[in-house]
């Protein structure tokens, strides 16, 4: 870093000038949340938006919220009933005809208040464009919801919006072109990394940055799914990017507990968005490998003559190396010597473990289906109407008290006990598989940090003046805190 500063003092100066308005302007927040329909709007999405509203409120940042169908009182959120809410009268039926959780599924209208509008793509694009054009503040934009993949090109990934509409990353760039003031974003959906292409003048190629001051963070790369769409209402289980990011900004976790360490890395008295991001990378034991727009820039910059070479084993001492050190210490991995090799071997073992669990889980599910079918046949022999849904006979049967009787009969079936045991084991295996995936992601994250540490140094060694200035411009934008 110091070498770079000696070589490119003007690049740093240019970046500082460009980013100065980001640092001084007050921020307004735009929070967008929800899935593409009722079934895809899990309660975690709603709770994340509420968590963001509360966190921003504590920082005196006003928020405008767009959520699912706007202020329509129709049901738009699904969740799983807690043990207190749940009465298990139909549990047996849901175990035989659906999944063990099906009986707990509930629907309701959002509890968010002051929702400014719906997230239908056309409405949202128009509202966003107006808001960005007319504001005299810099904007902080957060999206919580689902994403769509594009294996052809990162700038073609999208967000799934209400009423089965969508907005692609390059369309997003078109919308934010109307911004007259700086814009910083956080996208947390699957494949969100593709939205980092919006910082470029041409989202599909090249390193020239957009004329608008735009930068941000994403919970994932353009090619991976993200964590965080649970229907479980227990927030202590949430390990998504939003959870860690806002905890870092406020200094408190979702349970209201103070964080175990100070997230203000440079001790300047304010937690910048980049510091919050780096904290999220360090602290999250999830399946996410989060990206800053500057990380995406580094990867896009990586020239062809370096891309295929083995990386140097001695890490340069920059912020990525520091995050690597923290992660490696946390997971008992070596810091030097054959660190990368050791981590890669551990990753191979972790992947094998995950594959074995996946296979086991699949076999268990097959067995579960066979048992379900066996009980279904027995039930339908006794109550034939059950095999003909959408008929009068079926309607009459389920509107009578017979469902309770059927459910009781099912729970007495001699295969039912085995089914319950299998489903319990299946849930447990599913959790084990998720934990195995989370552990493998921690190892991948360490390798990713090492890669970024090397790439950053290489940019300073091989990059042109403009390339380095572009990177510094993004860093300046990311490093500014939110201003009330």
């Amino acid at each position, binding site marked *: 870093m110091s070498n770079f500063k000696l070589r490119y003092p003007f690049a740093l100066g240019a970046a500082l000038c460009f980013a100065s308005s980001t640092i001084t302007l007050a921020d307004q927040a735009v929070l967008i949340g929800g899935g593409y329909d009722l079934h895809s709007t899990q309660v975690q999405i709603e709770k994340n938006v509420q968590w963001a509203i509360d966190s921003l409120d504590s920082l005196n940042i006003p928020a405008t919220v767009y959520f699912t169908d706007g202020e329509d009182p129709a049901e738009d959120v699904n969740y799983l009933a807690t043990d207190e809410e749940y009465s298990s009268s139909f549990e047996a039926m849901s175990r035989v005809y659906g999944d063990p959780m099906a009986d707990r599924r509930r629907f309701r209208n959002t509890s968010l208040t002051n929702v400014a509008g719906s997230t239908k793509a056309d409405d949202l694009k128009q509202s966003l464009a107006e808001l960005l054009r007319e504001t005299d503040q810099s904007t902080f934009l957060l999206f919580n919801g689902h994403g769509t993949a594009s*294996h*052809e090109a990162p700038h073609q990934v999208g967000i799934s919006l209400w009423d089965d509409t969508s907005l692609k990353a390059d369309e997003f760039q078109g919308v934010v072109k109307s911004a007259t003031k700086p814009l910083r974003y956080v996208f947390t959906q699957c494949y969100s990394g593709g939205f980092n292409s919006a910082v470029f003048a041409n989202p599909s190629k090249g390193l020239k940055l957009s004329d608008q001051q735009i930068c941000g963070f994403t919970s994932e*790369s353009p*090619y*991976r799914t993200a964590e965080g769409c649970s229907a479980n209402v227990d927030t202590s289980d949430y390990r998504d990017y939003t959870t860690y990011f806002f905890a870092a900004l406020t200094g408190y976790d979702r349970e209201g507990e103070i964080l175990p360490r100070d997230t203000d890395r440079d001790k300047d008295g304010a937690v910048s968005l980049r510091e919050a991001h780096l904290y999220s990378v360090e602290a999250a034991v999830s399946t996410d490998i989060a990206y800053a727009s500057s990380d995406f820039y580094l990867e896009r910059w*990586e020239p*062809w*003559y*370096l*891309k*295929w*070479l*083995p*990386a*140097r*084993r001695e890490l340069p001492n920059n912020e990525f190396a520091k995050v690597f050190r923290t992660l490696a210490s946390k997971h008992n991995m070596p810091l030097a010597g*054959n*660190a*990368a*090799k*050791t*981590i*890669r*071997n551990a990753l191979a073992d972790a992947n094998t473990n995950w594959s074995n669990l996946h296979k086991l889980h699949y076999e268990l599910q097959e067995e579960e289906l066979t048992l379900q079918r066996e009980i279904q046949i027995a039930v339908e022999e006794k109550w034939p109407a059950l095999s003909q849904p959408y008929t009068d006979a079926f309607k009459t049967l389920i509107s009578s008290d017979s469902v309770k009787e059927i459910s009781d009969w099912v729970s007495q079936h001699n295969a039912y006990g085995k089914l319950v045991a299998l489903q319990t084991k299946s849930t447990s295996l599913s959790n084990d598989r998720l934990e195995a995936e989370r552990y493998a992601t921690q190892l*991948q994250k360490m*390798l*990713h940090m*090492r*890669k970024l540490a090397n*790439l950053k140094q290489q940019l300073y*060694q*091989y990059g042109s003046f403009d390339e380095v200035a572009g990177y510094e411009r993004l860093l300046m934008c990311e490093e500014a805190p939110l201003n009330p």
Partner: protein
Amino acid sequence: MPGWDSCALWNGYPMKRLIPFILFSLLVGVVIAASAWPLFVLIGGVLSQWFGEGSMLDAINNVPKEKVMADFWFGYQQSMPFAIGLGILAALDYFLLSQNKFTWVIAGLSLPLACIGILFVFYKDPAPLLPTFVLTGVGMFILYRFSDLIRRLVSR
């Protein structure tokens, strides 16, 4: 009346056989030029695997195959000037050194040397990359010698 090609000699070599030899030298050059980038990538990949670190490993694990292939082709195109240079060097080296039993010993060694030269001229931190470039050069040297062996076997 004897033709010029039956009595003229080049480097102790009858002119009649010179044109096929020139053509074969050019073929060696083409083989080296065409294989320079794939060899570079292969050696880079093997060493990345060995040391456990390299962008390529992450790309193979985390990026769609189409994108990896597109990057490979892009590298192939961009490296063409270097590959063509190495191809010309290989053709000249083969033409000048491979026919004499004394110079044959060192024939082809210019390729690893040229690779090391490229490394030290164009890279700012060459030392850690030396094994990749040396081994790429050695790979090209083996290809060069293998081509020579084929020609000798065929011409017997």
